[in-house]
């Protein structure tokens, strides 16, 4: 069953990045998020992505990151396919090539590539933050800068619910197997979904009862078992993060030449190749993923 679990959680380690306070990491991840949404420029986005990957390697969480990326990449490939035939771009669109009822547009390829890069720039930095910080440190830090406790708690619980659901799914599947569940394939998996969600709701109900019975929501200052310290370097990093984000955003807004949607022209062969690759990549992923789930 371990094969089905997606490992989005802290990878323990002692790298320089692990030792940074979660707040500067959060500031940078957020900054990258802002910049990624501000621009479609492939160069800026891919630079952010590459720097993120380098930091991932420095933090020695490459393996865990790769596992997530292997799932994320084929799924994001659908963006290329969808965007190329229906770009999220103001019309008029410039057609490159027509295949049957579908037309691939210049703006579509541009938009697809930049969206893919955008997703990878953002998630790489977000993964870097999540994989190198202890979850409770993140929330303690957020609380220190004034995030309401209840909101904080909702976030923590949401992060915890995912592994619980995965676990629940494995439990139900085992129960069905141990009563000689017939057949295999997707049809056999579907009936387990109902009890998984019923179980999850049941769990949430129990949680709310046990929370209230332990005085959740009563006022007062809360302390944490784990302490987080802010050093001079952490503050410097936060300031740099803010300056960098603001500077980049300003540059992106002011410098119109960063919009390459007109100048970056794609050869029809490249466009077709890319769309075909994206389609096949996604389909291959679906097939492999289904087989893995069914074997588990």
């Amino acid at each position: 069953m371990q094969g089905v679990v997606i490992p989005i959680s802290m990878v323990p380690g002692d790298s320089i990045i692990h030792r940074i306070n979660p707040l500067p990491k959060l500031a940078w991840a957020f900054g990258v998020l802002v910049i990624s949404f501000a621009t479609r420029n492939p160069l800026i986005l891919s630079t952010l992505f590459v720097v993120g990957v380098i930091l991932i390697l420095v933090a020695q969480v490459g393996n865990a990151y790769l596992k997530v990326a292997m799932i994320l990449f084929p799924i994001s490939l659908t963006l290329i396919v969808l965007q190329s035939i229906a770009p999220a771009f103001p019309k008029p669109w410039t057609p490159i090539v027509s295949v049957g009822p579908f037309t691939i547009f210049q703006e579509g390829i541009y938009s697809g590539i930049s969206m893919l890069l955008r997703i990878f720039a953002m998630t790489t930095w977000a993964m870097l933050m999540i994989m190198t910080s202890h979850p409770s440190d993140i929330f303690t830090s957020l609380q220190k800068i004034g995030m309401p406790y209840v909101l904080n708690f909702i976030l923590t619980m949401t992060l915890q619910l995912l592994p619980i659901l995965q676990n629940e799914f494995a439990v139900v599947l085992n129960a069905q197997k141990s009563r000689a569940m017939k057949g295999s394939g997707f049809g056999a998996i579907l009936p387990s979904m109902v009890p998984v969600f019923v179980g999850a709701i049941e769990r949430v109900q129990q949680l709310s009862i046990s929370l209230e019975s332990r005085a959740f929501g009563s006022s007062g200052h809360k302390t944490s078992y784990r302490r987080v310290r802010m050093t001079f370097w952490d503050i410097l990093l936060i300031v740099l993060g803010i300056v960098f984000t603001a500077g980049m955003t300003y540059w992106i807004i002011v410098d119109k030449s960063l919009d390459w949607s007109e100048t970056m022209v794609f050869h029809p062969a490249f466009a077709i190749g890319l769309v075909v690759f994206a389609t096949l990549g996604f389909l291959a992923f679906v097939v492999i993923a289904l087989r893995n789930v069914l074997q588990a």
Partner: protein
Amino acid sequence: MEPIIKVEDLTHIYPTGQVVAVKDISLEINPGEIVGVIGQNGSGKTTLVKHFIGLLKPTSGKVIVNGKDTAPLRVQQIAANVGYVYQNPNHQLFARTVREELAFGPRNLDLPEDEVNARVEQAVEFFHLEELLELHPYRISFPLRKLVGMASVYTMRPAVFILDEPTTGQDNITTQTVYRLIKKLRDEGSTVLCVAHDMILLAEVVDRMLVLRDGDLIMDATPREVFSDYEIMSSTHLTPPQITTLSLRLNGKFGAFDAAVLSIDEMVSEVQKFSNK
């Protein structure tokens, strides 16, 4: 007689962490035997019995059920012969009504529909589930949910019936149902494995006990022998039934009885014998 379960040098290490849950265990269980599995929490009882239905596969060693090595088999294939009642009924029940829950197993065995219905009816009668049939298993109380778990396996009539802590959290009435179930299974010739902390239950119903401590099988004997072995009992922090302890004390003081006493009925007849002496 060919053993129905044969374990050869079984070791199981869980993939997370390096905990050796069971170490180098070998044993044989014959058809029709009623076997108790005891030991402290974390001693490897559940890990051991989960191997018999293939929910766990040996890290090393072999588990042979019904003459077949379980390693290459899928749980679904073993489940036709081996029924496992989970310790936590929430891990076992998934259907939308109790009726569907009871019918799920036998349907998977490709039985004709009237046979499935007949089995459901029998189970309902035996476990007194008449009122619950159309309810969602999650909406009924924990002890009853546990009975539904047992009933859902009982409808499959497996040759080997594994009960994981059947009496934990049960009241007097539902506990009596567990007693009745085990006795009925014995009469029907099934093999029963019962993991339990409930020594009174085991003293009354099992022929043989496996004692586990930290993943080792440290004793394999009759309940009378196990309960009389003071060292084994104290090293595993287990306590025999009070009536057994009383008989052992009386034996120590007066040499009253021939052996440890396992039940109140036995005590009565032993006292009678003693007073006639």
